[in-house]
C-alpha cells in the first residue's frame, strides 16, 4: 500500500483544562474521500484545525507525504498544498467571485508598471477563475465579477470548494460543506466533491450528514472523546453502526491495519 498523504500520530491539544485532542491519530490515503464523523464536541474540528495549521498541537507529529511538517499558521499549510474550506467563513460576501478566488494570493501585473504600481492582473485572474469554475462544472455562474453575496448558498459553497481545488496540490479539507444547504444544493456540492476526487485530489470531509457520508466517502474516520476510535471502509459498515460507535453505544468492530502495520485504536 502507498504511504498516507496526510498522517498524524499522538496529537494533543488542550485549551485550559479541556483536552480537545487526546492523542489522536489520522491517516488520509491518496485519492480517497475520507469522512471524519463524531459527536458534537468530539474534537473533530480541533483535530482538523491542527492539520490545517489553524491550531498548533501541544504534542504529536504530522507528516505530509511522509515528511514531518509543522504549520504555524493556515497560510503555511496552504503553501504546503493543504487547502481548507472552513464552515461558514470561507468567503468575503462583498467581494466578487474572482476576488474571492484569489484573496490573499492576488496576481500582480508584470513588468516595471506592475512592480511600481502594484496593479493587479485582473484579466489573468478572471480568466483563471472562469477556467476553474468551468472545470468543476460550475458553469451556471456567468458573471465572474458579481459579488459573492448575490449567489445562492450552494453556489457560494461551490466557489469555496473551487477555490480550494484551484490552489490545492495535495489535500482538500471540507468542513461541513453541506450543513447550510437544501437538498438540491447539497446534491450539487456532493457532485462537486466527487469531481474533485476524480482529479486525483484526496479529500477530508467533515460532516454530520450520514447519508452524504455514506454516499461519497471511501472510508470513515470515527472520532470520539478527542481521539480516533476507528477507521472503517464505507462498504463494510452501516449508518446505525457508525452512529452507535460515534456515541459510544457500540465498540468498534474490527481492528484495521494501517500501512505501517500499527493497529488503529
Amino acid at each position: 500500500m502507498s504511504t498516507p498523504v496526510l498522517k498524524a500520530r499522538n496529537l494533543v491539544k488542550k485549551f485550559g483544562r479541556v483536552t480537545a485532542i487526546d492523542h489522536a491519530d489520522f491517516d488520509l490515503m491518496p485519492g480517497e474521500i475520507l469522512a471524519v464523523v463524531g459527536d458534537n464536541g468530539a474534537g473533530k474540528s480541533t483535530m482538523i484545525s491542527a492539520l490545517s495549521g489553524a491550531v498548533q498541537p501541544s504534542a504529536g507529529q504530522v507528516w505530509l507525504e511522509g515528511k514531518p511538517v509543522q504549520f504555524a499558521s493556515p497560510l503555511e499549510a496552504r503553501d504546503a498544498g493543504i487547502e481548507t474550506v472552513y464552515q461558514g467563513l470561507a468567503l468575503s460576501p462583498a467581494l466578487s467571485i474572482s476576488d474571492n478566488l484569489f484573496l490573499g494570493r492576488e496576481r500582480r501585473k508584470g513588468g516595471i508598471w506592475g512592480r511600481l504600481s502594484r496593479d493587479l492582473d485582473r484579466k489573468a485572474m478572471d480568466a483563471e477563475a472562469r477556467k476553474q469554475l468551468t472545470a468543476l462544472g460550475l458553469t451556471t455562474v456567468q458573471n465572474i465579477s458579481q459579488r459573492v453575496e448575490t449567489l445562492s448558498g450552494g453556489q457560494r459553497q461551490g466557489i469555496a470548494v473551487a477555490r480550494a481545488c484551484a490552489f490545492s496540490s495535495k489535500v482538500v479539507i471540507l468542513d461541513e460543506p453541506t450543513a447550510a444547504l437544501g437538498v438540491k444544493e447539497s446534491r450539487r456540492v456532493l457532485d462537486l466533491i466527487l469531481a474533485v476526487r476524480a482529479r486525483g485530489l484526496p479529500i477530508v470531509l467533515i460532516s454530520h450528514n450520514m447519508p452524504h457520508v455514506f454516499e461519497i466517502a471511501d472510508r470513515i474516520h470515527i472520532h470520539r472523546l478527542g481521539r480516533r476510535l476507528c477507521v472503517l471502509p464505507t462498504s463494510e459498515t452501516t449508518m446505525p453502526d457508525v452512529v452507535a460507535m460515534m456515541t459510544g453505544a457500540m465498540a468498534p468492530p474490527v481492528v484495521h491495519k494501517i500501512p505501517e502495520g500499527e493497529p488503529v485504536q
Partner: protein
Amino acid sequence: MTDEKLAVLRRGPADYEVAAAGASSDTAQFAETDGGWLRRIQTFLNEYPTTVPLLVLLLGVVLFSWISGRTFLHPYNLSLILQQVTIIGTVGMAQTLIILTAGIDLSVGVVMILTTVVAGRAAVSFGLPAEFIFAIGLSVGLGCGLLNGLLVAVFRLPPFIVTLGTFAMIGAMVLYVSGSQTISGRELAETTPSLLLTGTSFRIGGAQLTVGSILLLVLAAVLWFVLARTAFGRHVHAVGDAPDAARLSGINVRNTLLAVYVVAGAICAFAGWLMIGRVGAVSPTSGALANLDSITAVVIGGTSLFGGRGSVLGTLIGALIVGVFRNGLALSGADILWQEFAVGLLVILAVLLDQWIRKVSQ
C-alpha cells in the same frame, strides 16, 4: 472477530435507508431566479453602488438649476462648490478607508486641526525651514493614526470608543499647542508661504479653481487606484467585510488595519495643508465639525457603515452632493436650517438604501 460482530456489520440497510431508496437522484440545477425589475435594480445597485449618489448629484444639479437658473449653473458657482467641499472631501477620503474596514473615526477632524496648529506654531514661533514644517505636520498625522491604529488593531478596542477618546485628547492638544490663538495668513506668508500654497487660485474660463481642489481630485484618483486595483485595496475590503474569511485566506488582518489608520492619519495631515490654504490662516476652531461632516459625505456617497463596500469616488460625489444642496438651497433663499435638514435627510435615505442593497443575497 466474532460472528456476531460480523453479522452486525453486514446487517442490511436500516429502515430509513430503505425508505430513501426510491428518492430522486437527479442532479439539481442552480435555478436562475428572476425576481422581476425591482430585484434586477437591487442586483445592479449591489454591483455598482456609486450609481445612486451619481444620480442624486445629477438630480440636485438639475433641481437647483431649475430653481436658481444661471446663478447656480455658472462655472464660478460650480467651482466654488468644489472649493467648499475640498476639506470635507479630503477628510472623507481618510474616513472612507476606515469605514471600509467596518470602523469609524471620530478623530479625523481634530487630527487635521492638530497638524495645522503644530505646523503653524513651528513656522511662526520657531521659524523652522519649510521641509521641516511639512515633515512635522505629516508626522503628527501619522502619529495620531498610529495611536488609533494600535488601539484598534493590536489592543482590539472598538474604533468608535478609541477615536472618541483620541478625539478628546487630540482636541485638548490643539488648545494646548495653539493657546486658542489664530495664526494669521500674514504671519504665515512671512515665514513659510508654502503652507498657503493650496489656497492659490487660478481661472479656467469662468471657473475659479484652487490648487487644493485639484489636489483633492488627484488624491481621490490615487486612492481609487489603490483600493480597486491593488492587493492591499482588496484586503482592506475583505477585512471590513468578513474578517474571519480574510484571516483564513492568509491576510494579516492586524497589519492591514494598522496600515489603514496610519494612512488615514497621513491623509488628515494632507487635509490640514489644504485647510490652511482654504482658510488662509491657522485657526484652532475651523474644521471643528469635519469629523461628522466626513461621515456624512462617506455615507451619502454609498459606502456601507458595515464595512467592505464603498469607494472613495462615492465619497467625493457624496461631498459634492452636500455642497450642491447647501449651495443650491442658499441661492434659492431658503433658511440655513433647511440646509441642515436636507443633509440629514440624505444621510438617512442613503443608509436605508444601503440596507436594502446589502439584502441582495438569496
